[in-house]
C-alpha cells in the first residue's frame, strides 16, 4: 500500500485528491489530505462581500463534503516536512509517512510583515479583503464612509489573484457612484508596479479603465511602513500617500512550515519545474496551486489547468515513466469592472493577455480584454461550476492549454517606456 499525502484541502488540493482517487486503485493507494480546519472558502467571492453582494454562507463549505469517498481528511496544523525521511510532523506530535507528497497550502496575506499595518487601526481604517473577516469588516466600514480618500494598495508582488485589487477598486468606484458619493470621495490606486497590471497590453487597457473612472494611480510605490496616526502610507523612497480608508493587499507568503522544512524560497514558495510542478529538490514532492514559485498568476484557474496536466503526469511518474504532460502556465481570470460588467483575460508563461473571444475562438460567448455583461454573468455562474463540477473532479469542457485561436496579436512590439 502506497500513500499519497496532500497538504492543503483548498482549491488545488481538493481537485488533485479527487481526480487521483478516481484514477488510483483503492487497494494500492491510500490518499490522505491534511488541513488545519474544515472550512473550504470560495475565495473569488471575497471581492463581492464588501459591497453586500455575497454572504458568508455563499463563501464557506465544509472541506470533507468535497472530498471523495476513500480520501481521509486529517484536521491538524502542519509542523514540518522531513523530505529525506518522507514524513510529515503535525503540531501535537502525530507523524504521517508518505510515498508521494503534494504541497497545496497556498499563499497567505501577511499584514504582520509591514510595520504599522496591524495595530489599533487594523479593520478600523485599514482593511484587507483577502480574508472573509477583512472583507466583512470593510463592508461594515463602507456603510459609514461618505467622504475623503479611499486608497487601494498592493504591498508587493506576487499576490494571489493579481487582478483582485483592480476589481475592488472598480467595484468601490461603482458602489460610490450608485450611492451618490462619488464626488465626495477621491479614489487612489497605489501599486509597486509601473502601471495598472503586469503585462503591457492588459496594463494599457486596465489603466485606461482607471482613467475613465478618474481613479488616480500612484505607480512604483514600495511601502516601507504605515503611519497609523497620520493615516499615511510611507514608501522606501520617502513618498507619502494619505488615506482616510485604506484597502490594502498585505505581503503574500507561502506557509511557514515550508520555511521550517527548508523547502521554500525567500517568500516560502517551493521551487518547482514550471512544466511538471515537480520539486526541483525532491522527486517525491509535487507542488500545486499558489504554493509553488511558477512564474504565472497565483489563481484558481491556474490550479485547475495545472491539475489537469498533473494527474496524468503523476500516474506516469509513480510508474517510473517519464512525464509527458507539460503545463504552459495557463491562467484565465475574470476582472469585475463594476455596473454588472467584467473583463476576461487569458494568458500563459509566454503569451500576455490579448483581445479575442473565449472559450470558443471568434464565437465566445465571452470577450477577452473587453468589458461585457456576459463576462460578469460568467463570473457569477462560475461559483456553481466551482462547487459542483471543478471540486468534485468532474470534467470541465475547457482546454488546459492556452489557445492563440481568435486572438489579436499586437501589431508591433510595445515600447511603453525608455528609461531603465
Amino acid at each position, binding site marked *: 500500500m502506497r500513500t499519497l499525502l496532500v497538504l492543503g484541502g483548498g482549491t488545488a488540493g481538493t481537485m488533485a485528491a479527487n481526480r487521483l482517487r478516481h484514477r488510483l486503485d483503492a487497494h494500492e493507494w491510500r490518499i490522505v489530505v491534511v488541513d488545519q480546519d474544515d472550512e473550504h472558502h470560495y475565495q473569488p467571492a471575497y471581492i463581492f462581500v464588501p459591497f453586500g453582494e455575497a454572504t458568508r454562507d455563499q463563501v464557506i463549505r465544509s472541506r470533507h463534503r468535497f472530498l471523495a469517498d476513500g480520501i481521509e481528511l486529517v484536521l491538524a496544523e502542519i509542523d514540518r516536512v522531513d523530505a529525506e525521511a518522507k514524513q510529515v510532523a503535525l503540531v501535537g506530535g502525530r507523524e504521517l509517512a508518505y510515498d508521494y507528497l503534494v504541497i497545496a497550502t497556498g499563499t497567505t496575506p501577511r499584514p504582520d510583515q509591514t510595520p504599522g499595518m496591524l495595530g489599533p487601526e487594523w479593520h478600523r481604517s485599514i482593511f484587507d479583503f483577502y480574508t472573509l473577516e477583512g472583507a466583512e469588516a470593510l463592508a461594515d466600514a463602507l456603510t459609514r464612509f461618505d467622504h475623503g480618500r479611499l486608497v487601494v494598495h498592493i504591498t508587493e*508582488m506576487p499576490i494571489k489573484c493579481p487582478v483582485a485589487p483592480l476589481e475592488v477598486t472598480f467595484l468601490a468606484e461603482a458602489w460610490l457612484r450608485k450611492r451618490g458619493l462619488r464626488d465626495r470621495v477621491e479614489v487612489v490606486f497605489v501599486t509597486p508596479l509601473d502601471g495598472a497590471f503586469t503585462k503591457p497590453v492588459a496594463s494599457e487597457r486596465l489603466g485606461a479603465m482607471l482613467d475613465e473612472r478618474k481613479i488616480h494611480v500612484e505607480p*512604483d510605490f*514600495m511601502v*516601507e511602513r504605515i503611519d497609523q496616526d497620520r493615516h499615511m502610507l510611507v514608501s522606501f523612497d520617502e513618498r507619502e500617500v494619505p488615506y482616510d480608508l485604506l484597502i490594502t493587499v498585505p505581503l503574500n507568503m507561502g506557509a511557514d512550515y515550508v520555511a521550517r522544512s527548508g523547502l521554500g524560497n*525567500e517568500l516560502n514558495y517551493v521551487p518547482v519545474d514550471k512544466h511538471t510542478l515537480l520539486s526541483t529538490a525532491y522527486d517525491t514532492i509535487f507542488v500545486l496551486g499558489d504554493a509553488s514559485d511558477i512564474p*504565472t*498568476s497565483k489563481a484558481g484557474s491556474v490550479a485547475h489547468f495545472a491539475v489537469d496536466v498533473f494527474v496524468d503526469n503523476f500516474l506516469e511518474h509513480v510508474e517510473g515513466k517519464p512525464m509527458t504532460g507539460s503545463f504552459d502556465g495557463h491562467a484565465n481570470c475574470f476582472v469585475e469592472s463594476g455596473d454588472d460588467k467584467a473583463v476576461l483575460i487569458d494568458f500563459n508563461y509566454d503569451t500576455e493577455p490579448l483581445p479575442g473571444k473565449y472559450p470558443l475562438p471568434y464565437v465566445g460567448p465571452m470577450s477577452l480584454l473587453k468589458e461585457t455583461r456576459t463576462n460578469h454573468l460568467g463570473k457569477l455562474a462560475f461559483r456553481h461550476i466551482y462547487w459542483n463540477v471543478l471540486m468534485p473532479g468532474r470534467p470541465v469542457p475547457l482546454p488546459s492549454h492556452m489557445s492563440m485561436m481568435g486572438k489579436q496579436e499586437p501589431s508591433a512590439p510595445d515600447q511603453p*517606456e*525608455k528609461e*531603465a
Partner: protein
Amino acid sequence: MPTTTIDGHEIHVNEEGFLTDPTEWSEPLAKSLAAQIGIELTDEHWQAIRFLREDFAKEGETPTLRRISVVGGIPTKTLFQLFPQKPAKKLAYVAGLPKPHGCV
C-alpha cells in the same frame, strides 16, 4: 535584436535597452551603463551588482528586491538610495540582466 555601442562596447539589447546576452557584460560596461542612467558606481553599488550576477548565475533568474534583501543582505531602503525610484529595474539594467519578472 538591435545592437548598440556604449563607450566602445558593442552589445545586444532589447527595446528597453536591457542586455539580451548576459555574457556580454563586464565591469567596465557596468560603469558605462550606470552612467547612462546618471549613476556613479560606489562600493555599495558594486556589492548589489555582484549579488545580482552571482544569484542569476545560480538561479537563472534576476532576483527580486525581496530576494536581494533577504538572501543578499542589502536592505530595500539602501537599494532605493543607490538606484532611486526603480531599483529593481535599474539594478538589472546595470548588471546586464533581464528585468526581474516577480510580477505576474
